[in-house]
Every structure is written in structure tokens, then in C-alpha cells.
């Protein structure tokens, strides 16, 4: 059985609770173990990097140090956490002096980090470790009839493009089409949603998200599938505000890619927190009614 150290990150405890629930349910159904890193802390996000870099990397490394003792790779569903944890590893590998400083900070808490632990995104794990054949063999519903805009966002492909292309990633497209869904042409698949700008500079963020919604609707998508808590929240929870500001009437569901996968695997939609979303993905309810023979 494959096993991973699970790093949910702060968003998956709150705004992205449906992401957390669906990832856990999907991995369980596929027989893949997720073991939550005990007493994990905030990765530092983009914020700590803006204040003090070495402190940010040191607190991020606490999670890596605990995972190192578990002897497993890390599964990090939040794009931001994924990038920060990976950057922490890169920084530690880059300069022995920085590595020594970070370890000195960790030592103050009785920890040390010596063997770099690989950090993986669940999309990478699903497509590359578990494999599309295995996933398809366990599917009980076909997602036929669902047109979905696959939205990757920024930080799972950039800056390093480790498991997919930086300009035109296709892993989510492959996963969804294998399950019967129709990924539509989505030119905005790696365009920025503005992230924290929704809090700090709302005008700019609303305009960015307008473009993302327009591109999905123009290409006849029934819903957008995301892989990042911030993208999902900006696109979905602020849709009303976007409608008001730009005089539109979007009512486009924005789900996590794991919701579509979970529905295909026959997982109860409620168990995956679909009810916590602002806009009900009707099409998803339609497909789970029919049992594939």
C-alpha cells in the first residue's frame, strides 16, 4: 500500500474544507494511505517571505523535519503550501550556510532536518504514482456529459514545472477525460486569480477573476475544476461581487478536481463537502444518479 505524510495546510482546515474532505475520501477509496503530519504548523505562505525569509523557511522546515521522521513523501494539496515547502527544500539544498541556520533554529525546538523529504501535489501522485489505469478501473460512474474548464492556477506548475508543463499543463485534463468528462479548451488554465489581492486590492483581483470566468463560459464549461484553495475561493465566493461590479450574471460552479474524481469513484457528494460550496454543481448530482454497468 502506498503511503504519504499528509500536510493539509491552514486553508484546508477552514475555507477549503471541501478540498480536504474530498482528497481524504478519494485516497481512502483508492487504498492509498494519508497520515497527517502531527501538530503541523503554517508553512508561512507568501506572507512570511515578505517579512523575514529565514524565519519563514525555518517554520516551514519544522513540518519537513516531522515528516522526515515518518519516512514518507509529503502530499500537499494546497498549491501555495506545495510551492513553499518545495522552495524550503530548494533553499536548504542550495546553501550549506542557510541549511545550518535553519537547523540551528530547528534545534531550538529539539528538531533537525537532514534528509530532504520530497513534497508532492495530489494531482501528481494520482496521475504518476497511482496511475490513470488503476483509477479508471475503480470508477463506478462516468462523468460523461460534464464539460469542465481545468484550472491549474499558478503555483502547482510555476516556478519549476516539475510534474507538468508551465504553460500548458495537461495532467488534470488527462485525469478528467479518462473518467468520461470533457475538458474544454481553457486558455486561462494557468492565469493568476490574484490570490491574496482579493483582500488587499479587491478591484484588481475581481478583474482577474472576471477574465477566468468569462473564458470558461465562452468555452461552454459547466463548471471549473481547481487544484488550489485560493483560486476556488476567489472564483466562487466572489462571483456575486463580480456580477455586481461588472454587470454579469455568472452562476458557474467551481469545484475541486478531487470532487469530480470522487464522484466518479462513487463517493457520496455530501461526504466530500459539496454542500459547503456556494454554487451547487448540478451536473455532478446528475452523473451520480446513473450507475455504470
Amino acid at each position, binding site marked *: 500500500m502506498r503511503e504519504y505524510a499528509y500536510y493539509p495546510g491552514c486553508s484546508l482546515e477552514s475555507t477549503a474544507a471541501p478540498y480536504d474532505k474530498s482528497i481524504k475520501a478519494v485516497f481512502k477509496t483508492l487504498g492509498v494511505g494519508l497520515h497527517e503530519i502531527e501538530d503541523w504548523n*503554517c508553512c508561512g505562505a507568501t506572507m512570511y517571505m515578505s517579512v523575514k525569509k529565514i524565519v519563514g523557511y*525555518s517554520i516551514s522546515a519544522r513540518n519537513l523535519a516531522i515528516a522526515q521522521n515518518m519516512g514518507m513523501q509529503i502530499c500537499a494539496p494546497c498549491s501555495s503550501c506545495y510551492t513553499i515547502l518545495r522552495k524550503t527544500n530548494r533553499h536548504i539544498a542550495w546553501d550549506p550556510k542557510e541549511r545550518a541556520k535553519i537547523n540551528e533554529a530547528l534545534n531550538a525546538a529539539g528538531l533537525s532536518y537532514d534528509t530532504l523529504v520530497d513534497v508532492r501535489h495530489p494531482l501528481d501522485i494520482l496521475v504518476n504514482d497511482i496511475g490513470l489505469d488503476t483509477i479508471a478501473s475503480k470508477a463506478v460512474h462516468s462523468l460523461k456529459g460534464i464539460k469542465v474548464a481545468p484550472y491549474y492556477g499558478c503555483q502547482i506548475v510555476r516556478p519549476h514545472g516539475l510534474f507538468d508543463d508551465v504553460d500548458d499543463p495537461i495532467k488534470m485534463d488527462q485525469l478528467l477525460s479518462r473518467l468520461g468528462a470533457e475538458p474544454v479548451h481553457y486558455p486561462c488554465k494557468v492565469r493568476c486569480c490574484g490570490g491574496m*489581492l482579493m483582500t488587499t486590492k479587491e478591484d484588481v483581483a475581481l478583474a482577474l477573476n472576471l477574465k477566468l470566468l468569462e473564458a470558461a463560459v465562452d468555452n461552454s464549461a459547466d463548471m471549473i475544476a481547481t487544484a488550489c484553495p485560493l483560486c476556488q475561493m476567489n472564483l466562487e465566493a466572489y462571483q456575486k461581487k463580480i456580477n455586481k461590479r461588472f454587470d454579469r450574471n455568472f452562476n458557474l460552479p467551481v469545484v475541486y478536481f478531487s470532487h469530480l474524481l470522487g464522484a466518479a469513484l462513487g463517493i457520496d457528494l455530501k461526504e466530500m463537502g459539496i454542500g459547503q460550496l456556494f454554487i451547487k454543481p448540478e451536473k455532478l448530482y446528475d452523473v451520480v444518479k446513473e450507475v455504470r454497468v
Partner: protein
Amino acid sequence: MKTEIIPFPKAEAELRSAFWDQVSSFPEGHKIKLCLQCGTCSGTCPVSYAMDITPRQIVALFRAGHLEDILNSRAIWLCASCYSCTVRCPAGIRVTDTMYALKRLAIGNEIYPKRFLVHTLSKTFTNNVYRFGRNYELGLGIKYFLSADIKKLFSNIGYGITMIRRGRLGIIPHRLKRINQIRAIIKKANQFGES
């Protein structure tokens, strides 16, 4: 003809020295010297249209000796870390990481654009991590809007209530069991200087 080299004013010279410390503290930070002013960064940036100076201009201004003006600009605080510039720069410059370096320089020297208090979000965030070990989103939002934009606090109340009702925003912050570990790490790492 003798060329006269005019030194930078003291404040600018000190900032520049701190800037070089910052960019030498991350992988490939020094590549900023290779900028060829092509403007790919500004062209690919999804928010450059809203910036007072663009990423390309930031490098040009730095070369011309106007680092303080850069720190006074809103541009660095508009960067949303999408890394588009970083993957496209033909000179391999880590533009996003350089933006972080400028943000740290601004916070370290308390030089901010007028009426644009984005940096307070970063500071509130780091305080929350020290107190709880994790991000406390509700507290972060309220505290940020109170200090930076009180009108936004009221316009976002409805949104916050919906999030709470959907179980997507915790009211009570989660504190780590071993919060002392986090605090010890932060205290120790804080001794390693500004970068």
C-alpha cells in the same frame, strides 16, 4: 576627459547595500544584474496594468539610483506571486523572489507607499503564526481591515457570515499543541539578521 563618479546619497547607498544582501540570500538572486530591459516580465505580469511602475521599470529605476522610489511604489505590493515572469525571463532572473526581497527591504526600513497598507497584512499574518502556529483567517481579515481599510470590513461582513454558516471559516483559532516549538524556532531564526 575625466569622468566624475557621483556617489549615491547616503540613504540610497545604505538601501542598495541592504538590497544586495537580500538578493544574494536566495538561489540565482545575483542574476538581476543580467536584466536586458526586454520587458517580458511586465508583458506577462497579470497585474502590471495596475502597477504605478512595472517590473521592467523597477530594474531600470534601481540602476538609475532610485531604490527608495521603488520601495515607495505600490508595484511590489501588487505582486501576487504567480511566477509568470520568473518562468519567462530570458535572462533567468528570479523576478518573483526579487519582489519578495524588495518587500522585505521595505518592511525592514519602514518605507511604504502612501495610503496603501498591504504590508500590514504580512505583519498581522506573522503575528498570528507566532500566537497560534497556524493562520487564523477570521482574525487576520478583521485585524487587517481594521488597520488598513475599515470600509472593506463592512462590505465583507455578509461574505464572512456565509463562509461561517457553510463551515468554511472557523471562529475560534486552532493553537498548536507544541506552540512552544514554533516560538523557539521563530526566536532563534530572528537572530540571523534581516535577510
